[in-house]
């Protein structure tokens, strides 16, 4: 990976923060954990420095960082370290935050992933009254961006048609065109849950915590269950794993789905949105790599084909 100025600056920040004042050390070189337009993350020993997306709004990010520091969220969200130049710092025009390093989920063993713990953390997050004003949860905006990127990556390509048709069948609030219905809104939500958003802190054996608050805010808590729900509905996630996740969420009193019975009245819209988002990203990525979607990506696209073929009156406009 090419070392960019942002990566170098983050590595220096993380290293300096890990042991301020030291003149010489035998630290391993900083390690790039992610380098994307929506977030560059570099680790040095116990400290991780993150440059947020260049279009992220500093007041919104400050509210999200304050949320992680709130005593109400202790044991749920990983709190940030004090930022380099007071909260928050900046590198190359991008806002920077510092975090303690936590041990991530082992990507080579998704079966051993902490599905139950993730579900309980989400239920606790959703049940926590917001301690201060927060921006809306970023899930619908993320889905809309994924669709726009797909259209830009594959102009005139008929492959996008079923994904777009499934997208157009969603209610406006799931496409970031209007606020979520009042009775579903106003819950604390992570906004971008996947298995990369969990770490053990303190590393390696501490409790699991949620990280990456760039999309965190107020909204419909079902959105945080939508990605696993979409994987399950598309036939990727085994039903046993899905039920472990869902049952743990329900047992912890999570408000996104009814306590008993069919959960899909609360999940249908959001799972369709995440199916569209995932299929759109798959078509964008495969176009950039000049290849066809692989078997797994195709399953998400196939799910969009089925969504697009549903009679409109049998698609629930909104969950209970």
């Amino acid at each position, binding site marked *: 990976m090419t070392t960019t100025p942002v990566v170098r600056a983050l590595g220096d920040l993380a290293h300096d923060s890990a042991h301020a004042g030291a003149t010489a050390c035998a630290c391993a070189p900083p390690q790039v954990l992610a380098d994307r337009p*929506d977030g560059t993350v570099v680790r040095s020993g116990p400290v991780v420095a993150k440059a947020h997306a260049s279009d992220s709004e500093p007041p919104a990010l400050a509210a999200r960082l304050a949320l992680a520091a709130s005593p109400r969220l202790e044991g749920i969200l990983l709190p940030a370290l004090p930022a380099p130049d007071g909260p928050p710092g900046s590198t190359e025009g991008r806002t920077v935050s510092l975090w303690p390093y936590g041990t991530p989920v082992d990507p080579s063993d998704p079966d051993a992933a902490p599905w139950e713990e993730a579900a309980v953390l989400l239920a606790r997050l959703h049940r926590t009254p917001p301690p201060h004003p927060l921006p809306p949860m970023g899930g619908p905006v993320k889905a809309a961006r994924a669709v726009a990127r797909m259209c830009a990556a594959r102009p005139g390509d008929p492959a996008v048609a079923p994904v777009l048709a499934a997208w157009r069948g969603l209610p406006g609030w799931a496409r970031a065109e209007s606020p979520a219905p009042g009775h579903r809104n106003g819950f604390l939500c992570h906004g971008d849950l996947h298995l990369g958003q969990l770490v053990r802190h303190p590393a390696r054996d501490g409790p699991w915590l949620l990280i990456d608050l760039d999309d965190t805010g107020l909204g419909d808590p079902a959105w945080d269950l939508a990605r696993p729900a979409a994987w399950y509905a598309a036939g990727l996630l085994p*039903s046993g794993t899905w039920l472990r996740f869902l049952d743990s969420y329900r047992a912890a009193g999570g408000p996104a789905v009814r306590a008993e019975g069919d959960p899909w009245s609360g999940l249908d819209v959001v799972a369709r949105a995440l199916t569209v988002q995932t299929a759109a990203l798959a078509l964008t990525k495969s176009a950039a790599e000049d290849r066809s979607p692989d078997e797994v990506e195709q399953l998400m696209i196939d799910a969009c084909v089925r969504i697009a073929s549903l009679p409109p009156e049998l*698609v629930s406009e909104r969950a209970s």
Partner: protein
Amino acid sequence: MIQCPKCHAQMNTYNRNGVQIEQCSGCRGIFLDYGELESLTRLESQWAQQAPQAYPAAPPAPQAYPAAPAPAWGAPHQGGHHGGHHRQKSFGRMLFSS
């Protein structure tokens, strides 16, 4: 126009194979008049009798887990872990990306 007994929103009428059903524009609940459920059941059994000619019945797939409810657009074969190494690897990447 009928009003939904549950949420009081307006109900719209649809025709499904000659059977009128009322669906609420708010909560999406469905209202069936007297005899309509029986009509739908009859249509379903007619369909089931016709179906085997077009689609021979497949042997039931072994179920490693109890069946969980799924949406109307869910995959016909809830698989999960079937498929080769490549599929596992690709799904592994998907589990960890935004």
